[in-house]
């Protein structure tokens, strides 16, 4: 039951152990393990096909693993039917009950209980009212889903999930079907609700910004495996693999050589440090803002400006490299470079990984 035991900060609310799942012949999860801490807001981040939604559905009990265990607190929930898991699930396309009013939607889980466990009518009504206040839709109890905007519908869906006091809240791409501005507002709002309720929450997203902005910890998934789990700062500052690094944002990839702990590109020293034990030819990955324009000996790379555009006080310049690749450089919006002008680029930061 949801209660005090899981509220203790840092204790494990859900343990996913060695989960495997295969659909038809395609494996979507391989020997997957992850601990979810009580009270945290955890993002499952990955490209489509990484298995993140399947993982969420298995935790909810909407799918079952071929192998492995799901443990809620101290209870093995692997074979527990979905109704008994006490999870709140929010779907990408809301899945509100079209033929029911907003109030009936929110009260659904309470009304579905057996008579002995069902709260009194007045109590249900009060709970619905409180939840409508929480999601700031107080006057909407008698509306129908078709009369609401996408953002409002998703807030109702969240209230409906919270009504049953779930031990964990699971959100499957909750903002995926909304437009950019509404999405931003809802993100901030979800964070506020989480801070207020302290509800253990897992949400699935393929949007890096969303995961990094919203979550306490991010679990990066790729091809059915857990690549890395850590705070947004940890995964950004110390990505454990090129996959994580590439998935978290635009990157430039160049050949480099590690000698005596120093990373060299085209024979010139860079400020990037190599992890211990890594020697010889490697790949260096840098973000667009980890490149600067430079001349002569200072430049690690050369190229020709293809085009540039401004975005929010910065400019992004596309540079064609001699071997054919195009790299994107982000710089202050000061010097403009005409298309076709040759430039040198200096690497001022980045990460190296084995080839």
């Amino acid at each position, binding site marked *: 039951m949801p209660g005090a035991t899981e509220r203790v900060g840092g204790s494990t609310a859900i343990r996913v152990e060695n989960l495997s799942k295969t659909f038809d012949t395609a494996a979507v999860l391989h020997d997957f393990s992850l601990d979810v801490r009580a009270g945290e807001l955890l993002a499952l981040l990955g490209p489509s096909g990484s298995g993140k939604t399947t993982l969420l559905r298995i935790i909810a009990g909407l799918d079952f693993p071929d192998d492995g265990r799901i443990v809620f607190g101290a209870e093995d929930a692997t074979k527990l039917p*979905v*109704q008994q898991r006490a999870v*709140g*699930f929010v779907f990408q396309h809301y899945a*509100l009950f*079209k033929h029911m009013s907003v109030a009936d939607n929110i009260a*659904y889980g309470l009304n*579905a209980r057996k008579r002995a466990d069902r709260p009194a009518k007045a109590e249900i009504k009060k709970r619905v009212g409180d939840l409508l206040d929480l999601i700031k839709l107080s006057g909407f109890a008698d509306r129908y889903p078709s009369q609401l905007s996408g953002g409002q519908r998703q807030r109702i869906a969240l209230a409906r*999930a919270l009504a*049953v006091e779930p031990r964990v809240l699971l959100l499957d791409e909750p903002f995926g079907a909304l437009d950019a501005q509404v999405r931003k507002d809802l993100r901030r709002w979800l964070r506020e609700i989480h801070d207020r309720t302290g509800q253990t929450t897992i949400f699935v997203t393929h949007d890096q910004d969303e995961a990094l902005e919203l979550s306490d910890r991010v679990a990066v998934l790729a091809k059915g495996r857990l690549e890395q789990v850590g705070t947004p700062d940890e995964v950004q500052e110390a990505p454990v693999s090129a996959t994580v690094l590439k998935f978290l944002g635009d990157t430039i990839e160049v050949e480099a050589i590690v000698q005596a702990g120093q990373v060299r590109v085209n024979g010139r020293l860079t400020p990037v440090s190599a992890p211990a034990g890594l020697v010889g030819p490697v790949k260096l990955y840098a973000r667009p803002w980890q490149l600067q324009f430079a001349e002569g000996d200072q430049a690690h790379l050369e190229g020709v400006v293809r085009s540039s555009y401004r975005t929010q006080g910065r400019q992004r310049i596309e540079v064609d490299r001699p071997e054919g690749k195009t790299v994107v450089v982000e710089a202050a919006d000061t010097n403009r470079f005409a298309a076709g002008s040759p430039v040198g680029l200096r690497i001022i930061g980045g990460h190296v990984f084995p080839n």
Partner: protein
Amino acid sequence: MSETFAPVTMAEARPASVVTEGRWIRRILIGIAILFLALFLVLPLVTVFAQAFAKGLNAYLAAFTETDAHAAIRLTLLTAAIAVPFNLVFGIMASWAIAKFEFWGKNLLVTLIDLPFSVSPVVSGLIYVLVFGAQGLAGPWLIDHDIQVIFAVPGIVLATIFVTFPFVARQLIPLMQEQGTAEEEAALTLGASGWHAFRTVTLPNIRWGLLYSVLLCNARAMGEFGAVSVVSGHIRGLTNTLPLHVEILYNEYNFVASFAVASLLAGLALVTLLVKSLLEWRYADEIAAGARRH
């Protein structure tokens, strides 16, 4: 302003759209359609009522007072009362299975559901005679156990169920496919049992499509002639349904009674048509999902 660019005469001569025909072609096409409907649909319908009332209201009402007519009405109502709920349950189950699960042989099942629409009803009736008749496959066993199917009420009910079973399933399969399973999943995560989710989520979502298909199913169940005719044996007062009763009266040159009973069936058709149109008008979206596949 606009006159300077497009003189009125020009605007009139110009067709409203490239896919619109000229005025005369339009009139001829509409005329042919109306004439055709009048000749083949309205005229027979009027004739039915005209013949039924040819000898006045008393003669008309007399057709319903004889015991054989009562028996036929009762049997028709009984048959529909069994066949329609049966096909309602079967149709919901089959469409649920087809729309929400993946399984081997699914396409074959969909094709089989359509079979009664493509087979002549007489053949459907003959199949039952071959299976359940005295000379049929199950004949000896049925005789041993003193069960009569053919030339009795069970045969009529079976034949009616067979010819009417596609109505509900065909309407609901595309509707359920379109609605997907997200709402049911939401209900289950909220703690609802499977049955509670079905009752409170699935059923309300398909209610108008379901009502529509039940209506059509009922009209066909009460009006079915071919298949029932083969298995019935035409025993007056025992195995005659309304359509069969109409035929018997007609063959006996009892035109007024025959058309009077027929007017009952025609009235049923008109009411069905009216309710069907109302449903289509009011719940077009939900019904259209099913109609697209018909």
